[in-house]
């Protein structure tokens, strides 16, 4: 029984918070301010607690498994959650159903945690759905906005469709191998046509969640329509979680099919980077822009994934960790501006530096990090991904990735240019940032600069993965 508590500690903590929130909600409720502070504290505790009393092992007949790497991944996501609770303080305070929103978000997170720990396709499916469905509801949280509903309906329909395909794949896989267990699966994989079909169906479900081209179409629309919080949750936490699962599933469970998925990932990665970049070039809406840019980022994650090595895994975890900092910082800024002024267009950002230097610097740092410009951490993250990808000796692939880095630089610079260089008669007025958000932004900026330069971060991740 003791084992149960230590192994499942992250999930149990989340569940505890969930129930606490539920209890508060049904008892009397708290004012948004208080509630939010309470949640922030809880999430901080949750994050800190993640470092203690960890163990490795399996539960429920290998249905649930955990190890140091998974714990680390969960901690990274916890950290992301904490940041979200800080960065979007203003939005949360205005939110009508704050506790419900957090309950949804936390249950999605819970789903992701289970997904990461799942040792069985059934478990995986259940947790995947748990991680998806609440997000669809969250997307609709700007209840009176049509785009929000549109985003939600697109999200739920697309993901339902994709889970249909996933299930179809799982059923075929079950038919072909007779097992749903991750531990038993590899020995039974023979790359027969049926298994390949099944695998492709499974693969596409991951690809869909990670918004790999051509399964990415929902991403931009959902990101644009949803509240910024949801967008950032989707693009950071959700994407990170699925990337973690994707890596470990491919590397461990589907190792026998390596030849196939290597090629698949290569092709899809190139497409993802290209399409993501080409679309991002033209975007006017900052959220949509970040959506496409995050699609392009996924392409880079896939490059790292193609390495099929622990270094690849480590660099993906590292990258996601950096990505959380940089993307959340960018979304944090975007949210502040959109919340206070309702402006979401790149053109509205013109002359931002004149009025909001802090926001501008944070935005610039995060965009540079996303573009992979030193000395930000993104540089290291991206370079390690490419480096991991290069271990296979496929340098043309790396070359294409490098070219895409340049295209992506072009559109990141577009924002930088708007913020720092372009003149504007009516720039965004000075925004007074509340202390919580400010702390969040500072932490993110510090993270963006330091994670890369403090090389032990990567070494730590690498040691955990090993």
């Amino acid at each position, binding site marked *: 029984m003791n084992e149960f508590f230590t192994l499942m500690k992250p999930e149990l903590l989340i569940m505890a918070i969930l129930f606490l929130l539920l209890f508060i909600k049904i008892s009397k409720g708290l004012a948004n301010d208080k509630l939010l502070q309470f949640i922030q504290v809880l999430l901080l505790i949750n994050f800190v607690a993640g470092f203690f009393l960890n163990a490795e092992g399996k539960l429920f007949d290998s249905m649930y498994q955990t190890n140091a790497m998974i714990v680390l991944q969960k901690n990274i996501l916890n950290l992301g959650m904490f940041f979200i609770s800080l960065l979007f303080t203003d939005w949360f305070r205005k939110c009508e159903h704050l506790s419900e929103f957090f309950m949804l978000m936390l249950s999605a997170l819970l789903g992701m945690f289970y997904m990461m720990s799942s040792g069985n*396709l*059934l478990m995986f*499916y*259940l947790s995947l*759905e748990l991680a998806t*469905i*609440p997000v*669809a*509801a969250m997307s*609709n949280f700007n*209840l*009176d906005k*049509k*785009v929000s*509903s*549109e*985003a*939600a*309906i*697109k999200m*739920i*329909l697309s993901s*339902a*469709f994709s*889970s*249909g*395909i996933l*299930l*179809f794949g*799982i*059923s*075929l896989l*079950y*038919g072909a191998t*007779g*097992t*749903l267990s991750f531990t038993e699966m590899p020995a039974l994989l023979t790359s027969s046509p049926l298994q390949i079909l099944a695998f492709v169906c499974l693969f596409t479900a991951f690809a869909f969640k990670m918004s790999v081209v051509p399964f990415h179409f929902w991403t*931009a*629309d959902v990101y*644009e*329509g949803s509240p910024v919080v949801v967008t950032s949750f989707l693009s950071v936490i959700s994407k990170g979680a699925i990337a973690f699962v994707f890596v470990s599933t491919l590397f461990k469970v589907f190792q026998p099919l390596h030849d196939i998925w290597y090629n698949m990932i290569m092709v899809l990665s190139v497409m993802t980077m290209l399409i993501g970049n080409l679309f991002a070039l*033209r975007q006017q809406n900052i959220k*949509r822009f970040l959506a496409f840019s995050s699609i392009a980022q996924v392409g880079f994650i896939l490059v790292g994934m193609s390495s099929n090595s622990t270094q690849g895994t480590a660099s993906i975890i590292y990258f996601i960790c950096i990505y959380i900092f940089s993307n959340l910082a960018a979304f944090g800024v975007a949210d502040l501006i959109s919340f206070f002024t309702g402006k979401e267009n790149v053109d509205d950002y013109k002359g931002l530096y004149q009025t909001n230097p802090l926001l501008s610097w944070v935005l610039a740092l995060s965009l540079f990090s996303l573009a992979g410009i030193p000395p930000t951490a993104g540089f290291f993250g991206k370079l390690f991904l490419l480096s991991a990808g290069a271990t296979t000796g496929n340098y043309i692939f790396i070359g294409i990735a490098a070219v895409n880095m340049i295209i992506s630089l072009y559109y990141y610079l577009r924002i930088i240019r708007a913020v720092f260089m372009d003149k504007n008669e009516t720039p965004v007025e000075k925004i007074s940032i509340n202390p919580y958000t400010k702390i969040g932004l500072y932490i993110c900026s510090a993270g963006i600069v330091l994670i890369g330069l403090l090389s032990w971060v990567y070494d730590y991740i690498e040691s955990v993965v090993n």
Partner: protein
Amino acid sequence: MEPGLYHLLFISAALFFIGVYGFLTRRNLIAMLMSIELILNSVNLNFIAFNKYVWADKLDGLFFTIFVIAIAAAEAAVAIAIIINLTKNFQSIDVEETEEMKY
């Protein structure tokens, strides 16, 4: 003639594609949801068929089916909630209403 594995698989495949077809062509959001249910059901049929004819010693397939049904219900609940919100605000459940964001 006793129906065998292939019959069932055929039916489930047919069901799957009917579902897909419905999802792709229906204009009504509810109808699209129903099409997804068809897909899920075809999967369920698959599981049961495999469980019965191929892996009769294991019960994984059956369990999976039950969970799929449950999840489908949850999914439908959220989806319908969203649709209701959409209808409430815009008096339409046409999928073509949701094409504002593009390019």
